[in-house]
């Protein structure tokens, strides 16, 4: 049996990731704000902790994967938080898609207590979490990454060292900006193609075989938009959070970001239309409405 791992945050991503660790033979002690979500893991042998502090008392490697930096700060510095009980030499693996400046601040607080925090956000969705094929981007001392690698390797296939603390969270925001921005642009461009007499499916096929190809033309358009399924598994409100995070990052970095800004507001408009819980590929519905054109494959029942 390997060392005990603490795991805080058993949501859509956290639960399958924790499940991979249990299956890999790790002793796990888990916590979530909602005790009920832990039951399936407890049935598979994980132990329950009533607070983050109890997790810290029982494990020297603690994973956090939570909705935003706000919850991460609360779990670390709130009442009965991790900082109350971390034993010196502990390692926090912060896997939330979080705000890099908050991460750097929290890492400094953890370091001041003789432990370490590195950021290790993931990409790959629920499917990647379930299959253990996530991409993991790590910010922090490379030696700490090596210490964490066996644990991370149970959850992800491509593990990258991105740079110092906060760099993992920064590149995660940058990636999601690319993903969301290119998607919005490709949808708009395919609508223009459709109004110019090119069938949407044919337009995507041609872009994919030419210099405009991207994850949008390769994957999202054929799988989730041409079919009308809109079920890639990442909600507009979550994309919104990351696009706004990118905007703050660009501002802090002193880089003008006019292109990203324009794309970001498309998602905000979708939010304003009450589409926050819909899949991010559903911004195509808005653009279809503006363009007065359908982006589904011809003959598709949807």
């Amino acid at each position, binding site marked *: 049996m390997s060392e005990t791992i603490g795991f805080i945050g058993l949501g859509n991503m956290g639960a399958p990731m924790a499940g991979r660790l249990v299956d890999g033979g790790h002793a796990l002690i888990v916590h979530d704000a909602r005790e009920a979500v832990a039951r399936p893991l407890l049935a598979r042998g994980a132990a329950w902790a009533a607070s983050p502090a109890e997790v810290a008392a029982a494990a020297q490697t603690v994973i956090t994967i939570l909705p935003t930096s706000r919850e991460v700060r609360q779990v670390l510095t709130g009442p009965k938080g991790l900082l109350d009980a971390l034993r010196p030499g502990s390692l926090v693996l912060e896997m939330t898609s979080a705000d890099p400046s908050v991460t750097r601040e929290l890492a400094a607080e953890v370091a001041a207590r003789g432990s370490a925090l590195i950021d290790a956000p993931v990409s790959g969705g629920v499917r990647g979490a379930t299959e253990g094929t996530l991409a993991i981007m790590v910010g922090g001392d490379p030696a700490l990454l090596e210490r964490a690698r066996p644990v991370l390797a149970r959850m992800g296939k491509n593990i990258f060292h991105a740079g110092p603390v906060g760099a993992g969270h920064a590149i995660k925001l940058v990636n999601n900006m690319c993903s969301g921005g290119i998607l919005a642009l490709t949808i708009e461009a395919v609508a223009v193609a459709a109004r110019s007499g090119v069938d949407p499916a044919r337009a995507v096929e041609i872009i994919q075989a030419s210099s405009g190809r991207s994850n949008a033309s390769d994957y999202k358009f054929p799988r989730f938009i041409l079919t009308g399924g809109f079920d890639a598994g990442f909600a507009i409100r979550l994309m919104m959070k990351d696009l706004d995070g990118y905007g703050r990052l660009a501002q802090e970095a002193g880089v*003008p970001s006019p292109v990203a800004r*324009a794309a970001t507001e498309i998602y905000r408009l979708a*939010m304003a239309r009450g589409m926050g819980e819909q899949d991010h590929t559903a911004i195509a519905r808005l653009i279809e409405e503006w363009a007065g054109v359908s982006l589904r494959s011809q003959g598709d029942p949807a």
Partner: protein
Amino acid sequence: MTRIGFIGVGTMGLPMAKNLVKKGFTVTAFDSNPEAVKAAAAAGMTAAASAAEAVATADIVVTMLPSSPHVESVYTGDGGVLAAARKGTLCVDMSTIDPAVSQRVAKAAQERGVRFIDAPVSGGTPRATDGTLAIMVGGAAADFEEARPALAAMGTNVIHVGAVGSGEVVKLCNNLIAGVCGVAVSEAFRIAEGFGMDPKVVTDVISKSSGNTFLMGFMHPVPGLMPGAASSNDYKPGFMTDLMCKDLGLAVDAARNLRVPLFVTPAAQQVYRLASSHGLGRRDFTSVYSFLKPSSGQAPV
């Protein structure tokens, strides 16, 4: 005579405080920059060594600071205004900041028995010097009346617009429009000039048409049309590009929190940020016109 504790005697604060002195107010000044305090002392103010010292004997505290974090820390930080001011002191924050921060500081002030109103200004350094600023005030009516004589020493249009924070709301909306107009007027005149039009003629016509704006009438971005405008003085501010970036940022942030989709404002903000990256950050914001210089006539269209 009313004693004023004045914190933040920089580009805007110093000329404003000088007008208070001119109208007979007793002013004690503090700034985190010692050079600014020296300049205030040379203008007849008492120099204070700290914010706390500046407010300890004041009837009215005036703050004129660069941004929300500065205001929050000057009021609520260690040795800050709220800890040092006597109970009942009236604080007038004239900085341009996030309305939510004004409301937060007002609440903290109330808990300490201190009164707080927001009173941001419009008009830039020239009108701060002349004492002709527009001042938009948010706060209790009685507090507004008590502050009015001091405000009247600094501005000519002093308007009570509502509860605390609402001065900042109006200011933010005003600067949103001014900032967007700065880009719009600059783009329009670059197009007109591209067609070989005389900008003077274009200005005369537009000033009598639906495109007329205060910005074109008083701060024309094209050099040489208006002797008093920043554009005719090598874009000497006036109101700096970087400050316009900051104010549009406040509008964009407020819209994000209110979930209002914005397209034109963030685009305009990005244009100013680009202008700033091209060395125009400390020039007047209307220098965005010079940033929008077209490529050479030989370039293919």
